[in-house]
């Protein structure tokens, strides 16, 4: 039987249609494609030329073949070809197939394989015309009836793994009855091979199926992994991963996520060889540990591999009661302040109100798991009894000493106390304050390390007795206990032999205190928020979030029923795995309990042959055949279009398509091209020596215009100004330099003087960019048009003004105004009115200041920064210019007083550029002094 036998048809009758192909061939042959229409002008003169042969040319053979292929493929597809069909590897029985399939939570991890296998079984049954009865072991029991394969297939598609374990035995009676009714039935069991350890997972089912041995499909070994427990232990969060038997899956990654589903951490669990349990340990801070709401095995996709964590292992509620009077106006002296602050990061702190007894009883009502009593002496008898019961039930009682405790006496302390305290390092004591010794290894603080800074000045002493050493959890250097504790019933009582406030010791101020309290709170075994009795009476919790069989959280199905608060068993059909109750204080129901373990199912008990879970390899060829026919049809259409004379248009379209394709390729190429990074940028040029020097010493700068006379005047002027600055102010600038804005680094100069020379080329774009950066970066440029005598207000702009306007045309220049009299520039060093130079007539333009609010009278105004630009026409540099001997180089238009004022203006300019608006504050000094009465 060769490859041909591997091909069967589900509807072979349709193949008869192939016989019609010759007819189709003939039809196609005589109906060729529509002829082309060709415009042809000479037609008129040859109209009498009757074509010799009117019969059209035949349809081209290749077109004929193409169309026959399309028709053949369509017929083949309709016949339902199947490559390598699967027969039921059965016993030869012809009765209905009883398909039993495990769909409990442990079957979810390879559910698609199971589904494929079951589908191929049902399809095979359909080919053999056998009915199928479908039993899903995790679904509720019901009447088992043979179904038509189609209906069975539909039911199968609706099957999903359940978020609880399957109760296989429940189906045993029904199956037994079915097999009784259908003597020819053939059972096929697709098993997940897992049961809960210590339980009879499938005994009855096996017995029922053994009556008629069929086929058992199962993996070679029990494959699923499950998560049974997430324990919030003192040393970290531990997730326990179990498997039924060693199955080759030696490790798993467990992901812990918070209530919103965000992953918090991942941890590896590795099975020891042959072991069926492994632990994944999360090293998380306690705060994050408490936030863990869900842990799951990565990639397992099964409800059994998910453990939901409820409040029971989350933050503890700590009740805080102080014996001190509650009218404490100063919280830093409150004993509860430090404890509350230390507990807040990892516990839910409730402070009791009212009297001590009342507060304690209220906190116990609120289900606190830890009670802290800070220097509480006497409690009334009823509360004492409740507190005792609380500790017995697993509660944690932390007490702090104090004057009241020392005075009172109840038995809720771990040691007997001596009357009166002990003072160390006080004025009446010879002893120095004691530090805490290393913590005993047996106590809860074993993991902590004491710090030397902690000093204990006062303590309450315990009566020495036989148990004092065992009960000492922390001691001072001299061995006297400072923290004692005792286990009582399920819970603990701990006593700090000092106050909760820093009056006896600085321990409450230290980080050690936080750590110690954390260890104590973790010691609290009582994490359930309520007592059993209270829970039993509490109303049942309705399901809020329910997992599906794959471990995905969703809204609860209609079948999920409310669970009592005491619900502590595995998830059941009525109570599927999920979270029950309100968001705070919810109850988690998991597929597996912490104590559960998995065990392999004994398949030999079922009596049938065991086959692996391998889905059939049969390939349905219907789709490919139809697709091929469609593809050929497209080709045919294209060919027709081309033959019909659409060639030109198609050619254009093809070109367009090619263009689009090329465009897409280019785009994708661009997308995959490595992004340009900062490293690609050109390396920064090295800093030039001049710039370096300029950076080390502040100096004035002028722009070299290229006009020798103007440059000489600039240089001499700035030298004069530099000299004047050095003489009159605390600022001693270096020698002035000429800069070229296109070439030099400008950022090292505070002030740049720029004489505008008519006829010089405008600065380049690069220079303009640097000038812009300089001005934006806080520098000031003084543009000097040096043409004050020739300007008239409102008159024609002078050539220098035009030149300046052209220079500034592309710069981002702020709004300008003429120098107002109250501008800080006029007060920066000298008190001046304006900025004269060689000429005094020109006006000075400067960045406009923000308008003054009405009614505010200020002697000086300034904006936030300094003006990036000052424009003048007074030829400042010429007025400042001096020669080597300090003699003025150029005459001024007025008296020598004007030269002096020009110098003062220059000094003010420099001071303004260097100090900014600082003088606007200084001008208030006078009024301030007056107000102070000086």
């Amino acid at each position, binding site marked *: 039987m060769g490859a041909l036998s591997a091909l069967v048809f589900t509807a072979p009758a349709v193949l008869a249609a192939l016989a019609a192909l010759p007819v189709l061939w003939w039809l196609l042959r005589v109906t060729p494609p529509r*002829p082309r229409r*060709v415009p042809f002008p000479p037609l008129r*003169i040859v109209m009498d030329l009757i074509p010799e042969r009117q019969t059209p040319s035949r349809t081209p053979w290749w077109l004929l073949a193409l169309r026959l292929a399309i028709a053949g493929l369509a017929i083949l597809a309709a016949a339902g070809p199947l490559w390598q069909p699967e027969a039921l590897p059965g016993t030869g029985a012809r009765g209905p197939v009883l398909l039993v399939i495990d769909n409990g939570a442990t079957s979810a991890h390879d559910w698609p394989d199971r589904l494929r296998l079951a589908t191929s079984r049902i399809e095979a049954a359909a080919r053999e015309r056998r009915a199928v009865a479908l039993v899903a072991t995790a679904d509720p029991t019901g009447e088992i009836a043979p179904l038509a394969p189609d209906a069975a297939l539909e039911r199968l598609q609706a099957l999903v793994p359940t978020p609880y374990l399957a109760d296989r035995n429940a189906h045993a009676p029904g199956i037994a009855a079915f097999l009784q009714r259908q003597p020819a039935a053939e059972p096929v069991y697709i098993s997940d091979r897992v049961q809960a350890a210590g339980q009879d997972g499938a005994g009855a089912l096996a017995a029922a199926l053994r009556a008629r041995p069929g086929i058992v499909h199962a993996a070679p070994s029990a494959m699923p992994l499950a998560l049974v427990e997430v324990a919030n232990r003192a040393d970290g969060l531990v997730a326990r991963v179990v498997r039924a038997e060693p199955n080759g899956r030696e490790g798993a990654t467990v992901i812990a996520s918070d209530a919103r589903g965000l992953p918090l951490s991942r941890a590896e669990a590795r099975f020891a060889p042959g072991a069926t349990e492994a632990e994944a340990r999360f090293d998380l801070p306690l705060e994050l540990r408490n936030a863990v709401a869900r842990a799951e095995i990565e990639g397992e996709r099964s409800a059994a591999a998910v453990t939901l964590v409820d409040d029971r292992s989350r933050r503890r509620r700590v009740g805080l009661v102080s014996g001190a009077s509650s009218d404490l106006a100063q919280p830093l002296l409150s004993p509860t302040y430090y404890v509350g602050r230390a507990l807040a990061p990892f516990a839910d702190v409730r402070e009791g109100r009212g009297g001590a007894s009342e507060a304690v009883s209220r906190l116990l009502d609120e289900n606190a798991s830890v009670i802290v009593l800070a220097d509480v002496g006497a409690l009334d008898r009823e509360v004492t009894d409740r507190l005792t019961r609380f500790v017995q039930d697993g509660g944690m009682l932390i007490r702090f000493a104090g004057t009241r405790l020392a005075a009172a006496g109840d038995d809720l302390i771990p040691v007997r106390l001596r009357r009166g305290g002990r003072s160390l390092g006080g004025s009446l004591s010879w002893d120095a304050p004691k530090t805490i010794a290393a913590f005993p290894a047996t106590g809860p603080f074993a993991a902590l390390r004491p710090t030397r800074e902690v000093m204990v000045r006062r303590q309450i002493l315990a009566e020495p007795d036989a148990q004092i050493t065992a009960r000492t959890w922390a001691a001072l250097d001299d061995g006297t206990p400072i923290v004692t504790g005792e286990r009582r019933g399920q819970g603990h009582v701990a006593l700090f032999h000092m106050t909760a406030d820093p009056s006896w010791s600085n321990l409450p101020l230290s980080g050690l205190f936080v750590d110690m309290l954390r260890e104590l709170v973790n010691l609290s075994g009582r994490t359930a928020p309520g007592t059993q009795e209270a829970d039993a009476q509490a109303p049942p919790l309705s399901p809020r979030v329910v997992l599906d069989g794959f471990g995905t959280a969703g809204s609860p199905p209609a079948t999920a029923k409310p669970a009592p608060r005491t619900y502590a068993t595995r998830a059941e059909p009525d109570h599927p795995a999920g979270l029950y109750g309100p968001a705070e204080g919810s109850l988690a129901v998991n597929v597996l309990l912490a104590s559960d373990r998995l065990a392999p199912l004994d398949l030999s008990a079922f009596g049938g042959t065991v086959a692996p879970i391998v889905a059939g390899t049969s390939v349905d060829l219907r789709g490919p055949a139809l697709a091929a026919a469609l593809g050929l049809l497209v080709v045919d259409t294209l060919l027709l279009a081309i033959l019909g004379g659409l060639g030109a248009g198609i050619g254009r379209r093809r070109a367009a398509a090619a263009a689009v394709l090329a465009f897409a390729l280019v785009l994708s190429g661009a997308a995959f091209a490595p992004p340009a990074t900062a490293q690609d940028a050109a390396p920064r040029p090295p800093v030039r020596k001049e710039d370096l020097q300029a950076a080390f010493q502040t100096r004035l700068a002028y722009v070299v215009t290229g006009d020798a006379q103007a440059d000489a005047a600039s240089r001499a002027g700035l030298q004069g100004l530099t000299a004047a600055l050095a003489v009159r102010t605390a600022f001693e600038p270096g020698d002035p330099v000429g800069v070229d804005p296109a070439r030099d680094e400008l950022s090292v100069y505070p002030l740049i003087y720029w004489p505008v020379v008519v006829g010089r080329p405008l600065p380049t774009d690069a220079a303009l960019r640097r000038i812009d950066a300089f001005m934006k970066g806080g520098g000031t440029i003084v543009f000097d048009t040096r043409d004050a005598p020739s300007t008239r207000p409102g008159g024609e702009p002078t050539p220098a003004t035009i030149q300046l306007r052209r220079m500034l045309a592309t710069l981002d220049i702020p709004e300008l105004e003429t120098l107002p009299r109250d501008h800080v520039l006029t007060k920066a060093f000298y008190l001046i009115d304006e900025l004269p130079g060689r000429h005094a007539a020109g006006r000075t333009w400067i960045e406009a200041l923000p308008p003054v609010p009405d009614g505010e009278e200020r002697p000086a105004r300034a904006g936030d920064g300094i003006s990036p630009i000052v424009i003048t026409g007074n030829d400042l540099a010429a007025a400042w210019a001096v020669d080597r001997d300090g003699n003025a180089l150029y005459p001024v238009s007025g008296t020598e007083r004007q030269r002096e004022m020009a110098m003062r203006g220059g000094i003010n300019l420099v001071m303004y550029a260097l100090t900014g608006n600082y003088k606007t504050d200084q001008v208030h000094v006078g009024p301030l002094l007056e107000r102070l009465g000086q």
Partner: protein
Amino acid sequence: MAKVRVVDEAGRQPGRPVQALALELAARLPHMMLEARRVLAAVSGVHGRRRAGPGEAFWQFRAFAPGEAAQRVDWRRSARDDRLYVREREWEAAHSVHLWIDRSASMAYQSSLASASKAERALVIGLALADALVDAGERVGLLGLLPPRSSRRIAERLAETILLDDAGRDRDLPPGDALPPQAEVIMITDALVPAADFTARIAGISARGARGHVIRIVDPVEELFPFDGEAVLEDVEGRLDLRVGDARSWGALYRERFQAHGRAIADGCLKRGWSITTHRTDRPATEPALRLLGILAGGGVQRQGAA
């Protein structure tokens, strides 16, 4: 396989690009040819028109000679002074060239083998010839539309006139009025009319002795018929169509018929002493222009060459 297209209405009009092409072509026509033409004109006397004689254009006023017919006095001029003048007209011995460019629907046709549509090629050749001829001193007009003139911007004048002539777009043949003996006619057409009609029209035009030249524009597809398979041939002017079952076998018949048509046209021309130049639109436009100028210069009708 060749692809064909019918160009739109505007393609049959002498637009700016066509004029530019024509002037460019005219500029390329060698000056030598025009010089030869001028020499020839001087010798044969055909161009001896720089003197008074029978004609239409004004030549000069001359004094009235006693004994002349009084009706020859130009009274308008004579009224200006005391003497009498006679208006003399320039002797119109020079032949005026009458151009006719076929712009019927069949001209708006271009196949992928050709470099231009027939209409465009015809307009380019016609306008270029007009420009070159005016440059050489001839006067060029449009047959039936524009009297011959020697305007400097003759190509533009012709183009404008053609643009305004809507009726010309439906005519396969030129107006059949007989022209004076000195006139020369240049017909640029695809000659896709029955050869008998064509010959009759030529006979009509040359009834008074006018000479003529025919440039026959042929698209390569019309000559080669490179089709096969089934096709429906449509006439671009009328509603005719012809279903051809097997174009390849029909093509042989067609080519024979088409060549016969060409021969009939050529015979008709030669019989009347006209020249015929067949131009295929896949050839450069220079060829027919040069050939025609050569014929005009040589004065004789040559046998159809491979232009």
